[in-house]
Structures are given as C-alpha cells and as structure tokens.
C-alpha cells in the first residue's frame, strides 16, 4: 500500500517560483541483503519519479539502491498557467503510483 503526501500551493501568481514537496511511503529492499539461508533478497525500490505540469515534464529523478526508503522530493518550478501537476512514481515489481494536484495561477 502506497501513500503519497503532496504539498503544492493552491494559488500563486504568474511567473512566481513555486516550491513543490512530495513524500511517498515505500518499504525499500536494497537487493544487497541476504536471508538467513543465504539467498539474496530481491531488490524492491522506486526507480523513477517524474513530475509533469500540464503535460510538460518539469522534474525527473532516477533512484538507485540505498538512497532512501520513503523518497522525499522538494523541487521548484515556475508557475506559468493554471492546471494540473501530475506525479508519477514507478519501481520494481510493477510499483506504480500516480497522484495529481491542482494549481491556480492568477
């Protein structure tokens, strides 16, 4: 079960730099650990995070083992027009979560 917390200012002015914060829960298994019987525990991590703003990609992060269990991203973009921010996390074992947030630009 994945939960994502997103913080985007609801209202802002055109041309303003807005700060966006996201936090998602993910159990994370690095792929480096072994079970008590010596078998390698398969890797289970989030590999990619992409944020699009009305269809245009504004932020992308590629993740690798041993970075973080619950990735927390803070990034900024320039508010150009009202619309939707789409956040997508994808990872191992078919992990895929998509969330959206609305932003109003005056």
């Amino acid at each position, binding site marked *: 079960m994945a*939960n994502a*917390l*997103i913080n985007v200012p609801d209202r802002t002015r055109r041309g303003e730099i807005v700060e966006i*914060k996201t*936090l998602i*829960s993910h159990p994370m298994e690095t792929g480096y650990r072994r079970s008590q019987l010596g078998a390698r525990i398969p890797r289970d991590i989030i590999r990619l995070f992409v944020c699009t703003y009305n269809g245009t990609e504004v932020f992308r992060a590629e993740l690798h083992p041993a970075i973080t269990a*619950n990735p*927390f991203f803070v990034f900024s973009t320039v508010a150009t027009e009202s619309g939707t921010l789409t956040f997508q996390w994808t990872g191992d074992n078919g992990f895929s979560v998509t969330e959206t947030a609305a932003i109003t630009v005056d």
Partner: protein
Amino acid sequence: MIALAGASFAGEIPQAERRSGYELMSRETRAMQDDDTANPGMLAVLEGGALWARKTGAGGRACADCHGDARASMKGVAAHYPAYDTTLKRPVNLEQRINLCRTERQQSPALAYESRELLALTAYVARQARGLPIDIPVDARTQPFLDRGRAAFYRRQGQLNLACSQCHDDNWGRRLAGNTIPQAHPTGYPVYRLEWQSLGSLQRRLRNCLVGIRAEPYEYGAPEMVELELFLMWRARGMAIETPGVRP
C-alpha cells in the same frame, strides 16, 4: 556516600520547567515534524485514515460505521489515554482500546503490537488530539495504577541499577553519548524516530530504555508497561499532544 546519593536525587521537575522533547531537538528535526509533507509520520496517519474506513472481520464493520468521522468523534480522545476500562478493571492504552474494539465489535483478530496497521490506526486516532492538552483523570479506580507507575519510574532497576528518574528528572538537557536527555514526556506517540527509520509506540520506546539500563523489558501490553505509560502521561498533564511526532 549517603549524602551524595541524596544530593543526586533532585526529584520531580516543576510544572513550569517541563519541556517536550520537541524543544530539545535540532532545528532541522523540528522543521521535519512541523511540516506535514515532510513528516514521515503523516504517511501512517494517511494509512490509518484508510483503515478507519475499511470494513473488517466477521462483523463486516469499519471503525467509521460506529464512530463516524474521526475528526469529530476522536477529537482529543488520545489525550485521555491510558484510560480505565470498566470491564477489565484496569487502564488500557490506545493500542489496546483499538484492539478491544476490533475483537469485540468487529469480531476481527487483534492486531500485533508494532504492526503497521496498529501503528497507523493509533497514529490516525492520536492525530485527532494534536494541539490539545493531555488530561488524565485520576480517581479512586486509577490511583493504584498511577501509584505503581510512579513507583516504577523511581525504582532503580537493571544491571546498571538506574531509575528512569535519574536520567529524565535529574539530568535532562545533559548529554548521554551524542544525545540530549529529554524529560520523557510522551507527547508525540506514536512517534517517527529517525534512529528507527520507522514509526513506533511508546512501549517500544520504553523497552528501548529498559534494554539500555540492562533490565529485562516487559512484554508489549504488559500491565507494568501500561501503568508506566499512565504515570508518564499524567506527569505530562497539560502539555499538548504532537502526534505524529518526530524524534532523533
């Protein structure tokens, strides 16, 4: 020697000098707790909200089916726990109360202590008390349990022969290895502890301390644990609930 031992026992912290562990944390950790997007405990609160509405057990009922909107029905509830249970004739903590509801009303198996679900539900319920003062009603029924909790707090135990009070009453604010010793007010539980990299209950924290003084820790849910919880909450009466707290 007797005089020295007497002098090292400073006793209870005056009401005005009580500080939440929050105030002894670094600026960065405080910022993490204050920002609901950065606070990892909020992930558990979110999950707890989903569990609150999910039907479970033979009863086919969700928490929400009886209690409705938790924001109204659970407002401030966690500030009164552990609370006296008239059937069991002893105080129960919030985790135990949730499990009592599950087994009796939802006819669903009890959740294990420190399980993801139980922590999430507890965090969700306790979150509804955030900002409200801790208020533990003391009456003839709870007094003996409170007294036993108090005795445990002041009792030297373990191979290191230390009482809780020797660190948390007498030496708070000083350093123990790299850490500042807090006053041990349970204001933010279940708490996201950076050292654990996860959410944990007050009992997990108490067991940590007991292992630290090399005492045999009580089992989760043991009456001794609840009594100590009761005393700690009473000791922190009037202080605001911070759930979900973040601690180093």
